[in-house]
C-alpha cells in the first residue's frame, strides 16, 4: 500500500476514534484510554527496542517519572496539569540522558538487566522520597469526565506514531536500524552511535512520560508500585513484539489486540485473564517471534509452514 494511502487511512481511523466518547459506552471509553496509553508505551518502546535493537526493560521508569511529575506538581505545588506534564517529561529526559550514557554501552541482555535494575532502583528511591508521598503515594485532584483523557491519549498516540513514521524514513532512523543490525559497522560508517542511541532513548522517554502523566491524573492516585509497575515493561514489549517490532503500526495493533482480549477475559472470567497473558507470551515467542505484521506478510506465501519455519530456525 502506498504511503499516501496509508497515511490517509490512518488519519481517518484517528478521526473516527476521536468521536468515540460521544457515542461509545463509558466502559468503551475507559478501555480506550487504557489501550491508547498502552499502545503509546509499546510504540515508544518500539523506538529503542524495535528500531535500535536495544531491548529496554526499564521504560516503566519514564512512565513513572511522568506520573510523579504530574502528581508532585499538582499536589505539592498546586500547578496546572500541563506544567506537571512538562515536569514529568523533563525528569524522564534528564534520566534518559544521565543514565542512558553508561547503560547504553551495554549490549543485549546486559542492557535489558541493567534497565530492569534501574526500574527497581527508581521504585525503591521514590518510595523513600517525602515529596513523592513515600510509599503511601499521592492523591491527585479529581477531574470528572473521561472525554478529556481519551482525546489526550489519542493525540499522544498519534504524535508518537507519526514520530515513529518519520523515524522510519529519516536518516536518523536509518542510523538506528544500522545500529540494530551491526553496531560496529555502523560506527565505522560514521554513524555517531552514542548520540543516536541516547536520542532514541530520550525520545521514547518523553512519550512514555506523557503517557504516565495522563494515566496518573486519570486514575487520581499514584504510588511507587503502580507508577513504576515492572510488569508494564513486559506488557509493552510483548505488545510491540506481538504486533511487530520495528514497524510503524505493529505495536499499536499488538497493543489494541492484546488489550481487547485481556479486557474481555477480565470482565467475563477474571481469573483466566492472568494465565491468558502468560500463555499468549509463550505462544507468541515460539510461533511468531517477529510479530503479527511479519506473520501477515509471510503467511500468504508460506501458509502454515510459517510457524514451523519459525520453530525450526530457533530450536536446538
Amino acid at each position, binding site marked *: 500500500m502506498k504511503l499516501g494511502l496509508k497515511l490517509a487511512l490512518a488519519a481517518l481511523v484517528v478521526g473516527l476514534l476521536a468521536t468515540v466518547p460521544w457515542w461509545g459506552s*463509558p466502559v468503551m471509553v475507559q478501555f480506550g484510554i487504557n489501550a491508547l496509553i498502552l499502545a503509546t508505551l509499546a510504540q515508544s518502546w518500539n523506538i529503542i527496542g524495535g528500531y535500535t535493537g536495544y531491548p529496554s526493560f526499564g521504560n516503566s521508569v519514564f512512565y513513572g517519572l511522568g506520573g510523579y511529575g504530574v502528581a508532585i506538581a499538582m499536589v505539592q505545588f498546586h500547578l496546572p496539569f500541563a506544567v506537571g506534564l512538562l515536569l514529568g517529561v523533563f525528569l524522564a529526559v534528564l534520566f534518559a540522558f544521565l543514565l542512558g550514557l553508561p547503560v547504553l554501552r551495554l549490549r543485549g541482555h546486559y542492557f535489558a538487566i541493567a534497565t530492569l535494575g534501574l526500574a527497581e532502583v527508581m521504585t525503591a528511591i521514590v518510595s523513600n522520597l517525602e515529596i513523592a508521598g513515600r510509599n503511601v503515594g499521592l492523591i491527585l485532584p479529581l477531574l470528572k469526565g473521561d472525554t478529556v483523557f481519551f482525546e489526550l491519549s489519542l493525540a499522544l498516540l498519534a504524535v508518537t506514531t507519526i514520530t515513529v513514521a518519520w523515524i522510519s524514513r529519516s536518516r536518523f532512523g536509518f542510523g538506528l536500524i544500522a545500529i540494530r543490525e551491526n553496531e560496529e559497522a555502523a560506527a565505522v560508517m560514521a554513524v555517531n552511535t552514542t548520540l543516536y542511541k541516547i536520542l532514541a532513548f530520550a525520545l521514547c522517554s518523553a512519550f512514555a512520560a506523557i503517557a504516565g502523566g495522563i494515566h496518573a491524573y486519570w*486514575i487520581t*492516585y499514584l504510588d511507587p508500585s503502580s507508577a513504576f509497575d515492572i510488569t508494564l515493561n513486559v506488557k509493552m514489549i510483548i505488545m510491540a513484539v506481538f504486533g511487530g517490532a520495528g514497524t510503524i503500526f505493529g505495536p499499536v495493533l499488538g497493543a489494541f489486540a492484546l488489550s481487547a482480549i485481556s479486557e474481555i477475559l477480565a470482565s467475563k472470567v477474571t481469573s483466566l485473564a492472568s494465565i491468558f497473558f502468560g500463555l499468549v507470551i509463550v505462544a507468541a515467542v515460539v510461533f511468531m517471534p517477529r510479530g503479527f505484521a511479519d506473520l501477515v506478510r509471510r503467511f500468504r506465501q508460506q501458509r502454515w509452514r510459517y510457524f514451523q519455519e519459525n520453530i525450526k530456525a530457533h530450536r536446538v
Partner: protein
Amino acid sequence: MKNLTLLFATMTLLLGSKLFAAPIELGASVQLTGQFANTGRYYGDAYQFAVEKINAAGGVKIGNAREKLNLKILDNQSDVNLSVRQYVQLVTQDKVNFLLGPFASDFALADSAISEKYDIPMIQGGGASDQIFSRRYKYIFGTLPPASDYFQSTLELMGQLKPAPATVALLYADDAFDVSVADGTRKAASKTSLKIVVDQRYSSKASDFNSILSLIKSQNVDAILVAGHETEILNFIRQAKTLNVNPKLYSFTVGVPSADFRAALGQDANYAFGMTSWVPSVVLKDDYFGNAEQFANEYKKRFGYEPDYHAASAVGDVEAFVKAIESANSLDPAKVRDAIAKVDFDSLYGRIRFNAAGQINLPQTVVQIQKGKLVPVYGPKGLLEKPLYPMPEWGKR
C-alpha cells in the same frame, strides 16, 4: 383464541414483573486471587453470605414491595489499577445501584475516587487509613475504625500491667494504613509514660527483620508494637524466635485474630497480643443472623474457615445499605447517600453509625493468644480476662 392468548400473555408479563421485580444490584471488586487473596476472600464470602441471608428474610423493603439484593463480585487479582477499572465497569456497564468496597486501605483509597466521580455511594469495610476520609469525599463510607486509633486500647492496657513496660519499639510497614497507625500511636504514646526508643519504618514487601530484631534486642526493649501485614508479622515472630528476642510484650495490628495465622505459627503464636474491632459474642445482636456467635458458627459451616472482623465488617456494609435504602425509601444514589450518613443501628458487627467524614468509630478490643486460643483481654469497659504478662523467654516455654 389469539386474543385470549395475547391477554393471557400480557397478564402473565404484568404479574411476572411484579413477582420478579428488578433486584437491587450491589457491585464489588475484591481480591479473590493474588497476594491479598488470603484476606480478600473474607469480603467476597461475607458479602455473599449477607446477601443470601437478607434475601431469605424477604429482601429490602421499598415502597410497597420487597426487592431482592443481587451481588456482582469481580476479582481484581490484588491489582489496584484493575480494581479501579472494575469499579468503573460495575457502575457504567453493569449499572449496579451501589458499591461495596475492597480489602486494604490503598485499594479503598483508589477505588473511592470512582464512587466520588460517578456519585454512587460505596461502603467499604477494608480500609481504615486516615487519607481515605481526610479528602472529605461524600460518597465513601467505612466500617473499619480509624487506623490512628488501633493501638489506643493496647496502650491503655499497657498502663495497667505490672511491671509496667517503659520502652517501646514501634515498627510499621510502608503503606497507607500502617503509616496512619504509627502516626496515631506515636501521638497516643506521647501522652503516656512510655518511651519509644526504636521507631522504624520498613518496606511492605520485607521478609527479613533480622537487623531490626537485633537492634531491638540490643536495646532490651520492653514492648514491641508492629503495624504490618500478616505475612510480615509471621516472619517477624519466627525470626524473633530464631534470634532469641524476648520482649515483655508484643502486639500486632493484624494476624492474631485470624485462625490460619495461628495455625501457621503453632505454639509460637502464644502470648502474642493483637486487636479486633469485633468479637463473635452473643451480646452483638443482629436482625438477620441472630447474634455474632451464631453468625460465626454458620459462617464456619458454610465456608470452612472461621470469620474474623473483616468478614463481620463486610456483613455490616451490606446491612448498612439495606437500612439506608429502607430509610430513604428509594434507590436514588443521592438520597441513599444521605440516609447512610444518618444510619444508627445494631448489627452482629456492633453499632453501625458513621461520623461526619464517613468513618465508623468502634473501640478495639485487645486480644491475646493464650494456649492456642484467642482470648479477649481488654475491652472498652476495661479488663476482661487476665493477660499473660510478661511473656516468658523462648527457651522457657
